[in-house]
């Protein structure tokens, strides 16, 4: 079939003010595809251990995949960098119009790699197969204002990114979508890159893939998940988590929220002016008007800003979400920072008068964090662990690798706790989310069952996010994309793609190990060893250590959580690992070290 081969990247050096094109090594393209995998490969290759995430030497890669624009659902973009929040690997994904516009504007490219630091605020404009740098006149603007300042699809930072808040996002479409969590927005802020503007038409779906795409979208539309998604968007997850007693509420004090319905899908439906994608079979979340502007409240906002802060007023939660969206700050981490401040004020660690349920106080504090306005906000802008370090109170709101836990409470769900603990970018519910079944039948699971559910999901998503698939409609890509790639003339099959997923997951582990991470960073947060109010579920640290060892054994990693040479050889990573990345001699459960 005839299609444009994507086998180059654009390198943008903001210090030198240059844009250069380079070919992606064929071996890298085959072994890592695009998205997460290719981004991780460049990050591991280009960065030295200990690189300052907010310094000019850090790399921020915006990477799409060989099938971007062709796959069912929404096209997505991987943003890969070293996180200023965790100090480790960060990948984050964002949709909207930008991924298709980038892939359309750069038809032979797989990504844009940004290094250096501009002298003055700068914009990268991508159009007609090339890119150039322009002065950015909108430094200080919110994400919606920045979007309105340009003609084209815009990925940008808001004030939080400019102030290097370590959980600032990269926003698209005026703040409707975000590459969130570990602070990719702060990395762009430190580089003084305000926006990436893409002017390209979406890639035309090749004839050979049109049938596959139609079938996948129909299957999703008719599937249970697709029907749920069409009915509720993601917002009902707050009611699900409440119903199964896994909803972190009021700073993790409780695990059920009496206001979950009030901030849930029925309230959104009543308030909605539109759906996110009204013309699609699965139309996305609900669009509402708030006094902080238009907003698309999602499950994470209802959970972390509603239940997490004890706010049971839908309009107030939506407005708080809209505030975060415009400032370009992650809703989970912002909500967790406020929750931490309230609990620390209750325990006396913080000399402030704060309380749960006070939406206006939460908005004031979030705005202050985004601008690093005042000592408390400045510290909270560096994350929960930094705040605990300065003021005390580490145990109250849990984190892994300095990233706040999302609001799925795993105290009665050890597999979910394992997913948080072993997630490569810090506590994350998207690499594996076993709680969706564990909440119902986890009581019958063995440790092997728990590990199986976590490592399978991590591996599969590593492959799918290298393509990069839509998180929801992508579920229909049940062969990890093999048939899609074959239609483009590639010879990947399910087995090779599964191995690719494991390779990518192991490479991100190598990156973190090189930065000094080991078993101690896969710890169980102390807050999870204490039962929530009114409950009796808490995790047992000894049992969790045994579970973690079972996980390492399944991955072929050693007792310190480091891959072994034998595992690297099995995954074709022996030639990738450098001399300064420490490895374990033998995997957990293996008696003798490998001969190699």
């Amino acid at each position, binding site marked *: 079939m005839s299609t444009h081969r994507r086998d180059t990247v654009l390198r943008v050096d903001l210090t030198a003010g240059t844009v250069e094109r380079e070919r992606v090594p064929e071996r890298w393209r085959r072994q890592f595809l695009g998205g997460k995998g290719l981004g991780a490969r460049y990050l591991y290759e280009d960065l030295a251990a200990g690189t300052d995430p907010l310094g000019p030497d850090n790399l921020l890669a915006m990477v799409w995949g060989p099938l971007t624009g062709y796959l069912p659902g929404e096209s997505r973009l991987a943003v890969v960098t070293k996180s200023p929040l965790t100090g480790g690997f960060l990948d984050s994904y964002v949709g909207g119009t930008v991924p298709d516009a980038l892939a359309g504007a750069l038809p032979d490219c797989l990504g844009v790699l940004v290094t250096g630091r501009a002298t003055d605020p700068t914009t990268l404009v991508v159009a007609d197969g090339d890119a150039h740098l322009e002065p950015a006149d909108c430094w200080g603007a919110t994400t919606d204002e920045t979007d309105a300042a340009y003609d084209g699809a815009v990925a940008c930072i808001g004030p939080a990114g400019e102030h290097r808040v370590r959980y600032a996002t990269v926003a698209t479409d005026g703040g409707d979508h975000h590459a969130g969590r570990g602070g990719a927005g702060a990395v762009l802020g430190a580089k003084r890159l305000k926006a990436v503007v893409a002017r390209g038409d979406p890639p035309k779906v090749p004839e050979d893939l049109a049938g596959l795409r139609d079938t996948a979208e129909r299957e999703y539309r008719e599937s*249970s998940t697709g029907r749920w998604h069409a009915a509720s968007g993601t917002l*009902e997850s707050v*009611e699900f988590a409440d119903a199964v007693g896994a909803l972190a509420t009021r700073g993790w004090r409780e695990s059920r929220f009496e206001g979950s319905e009030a901030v849930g899908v029925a309230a959104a439906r009543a308030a909605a002016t539109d759906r996110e994608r009204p013309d699609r079979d699965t139309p996305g979340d609900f669009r509402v008007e708030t006094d902080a502007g238009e907003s698309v409240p999602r499950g994470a906002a209802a959970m972390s800003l509603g239940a997490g802060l004890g706010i049971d007023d839908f309009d107030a939660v939506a407005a708080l979400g809209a505030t975060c969206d415009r400032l370009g700050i992650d809703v989970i981490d912002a909500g967790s920072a406020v929750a931490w401040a309230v609990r620390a004020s209750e325990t006396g660690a913080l000399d402030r008068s704060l309380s749960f349920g006070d939406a206006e106080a939460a908005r004031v504090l979030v705005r202050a964090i985004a601008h690093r306005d005042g000592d408390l906000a400045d510290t909270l802008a560096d994350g929960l662990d930094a705040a605990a370090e300065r003021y005390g109170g580490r145990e109250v709101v849990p984190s892994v690798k300095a990233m706040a836990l999302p609001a799925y409470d795993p105290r009665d769900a050890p597999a979910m706790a394992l997913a948080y603990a072993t997630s490569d970018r810090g506590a994350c519910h998207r690499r594996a*989310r076993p709680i*969706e079944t564990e909440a*119902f039948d986890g009581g019958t699971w063995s440790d092997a069952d728990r590990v199986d559910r976590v490592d399978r999901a991590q591996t599969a998503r590593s492959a799918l996010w290298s393509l990069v698939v839509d998180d929801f409609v992508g579920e229909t890509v049940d062969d990890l994309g093999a048939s899609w790639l074959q239609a483009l003339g590639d010879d990947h099959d399910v087995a090779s793609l599964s191995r690719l997923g494991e390779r990518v997951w192991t490479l991100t582990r190598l990156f973190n190990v090189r930065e000094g991470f080991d078993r101690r960073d896969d710890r169980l947060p102390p807050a999870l060893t204490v039962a929530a109010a009114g409950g009796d579920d808490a995790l047992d640290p000894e049992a969790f250590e045994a579970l973690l060892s079972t996980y390492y054994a399944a991955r072929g990693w050693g007792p310190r959580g480091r891959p072994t040479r034998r595992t690297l050889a099995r995954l074709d990573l022996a030639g990738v690992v450098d001399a300064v990345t420490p490895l374990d001699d033998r995997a957990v459960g293996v008696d003798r070290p490998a001969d190699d």
Partner: protein
Amino acid sequence: MDVDLRFFATFREAVGQKNITRAFDDGLTIGDLLAALESEFDGLEGELLDDTGDIRPQLSVLKNGREVLHIDGTATELDDGDTVSVFPPVAGG
């Protein structure tokens, strides 16, 4: 006796509301309840039980927060004041 029922996502759409209470005779089981719901609501017909009368795969039914498959399945007995929650497969976010 009265049983409180909670529906999620597509089931909520089929029923038209999230929470309802229904009165039943004593001795009601989960199987009886699900069959009665399929009869009452057109949108639930064939959605809860399979051809053999078992709970459909991927469907989760909780009695007072506990998965009924780990109690007595469709034979699980219900008492006055019990809450039954009915979930399709979860789509999280």
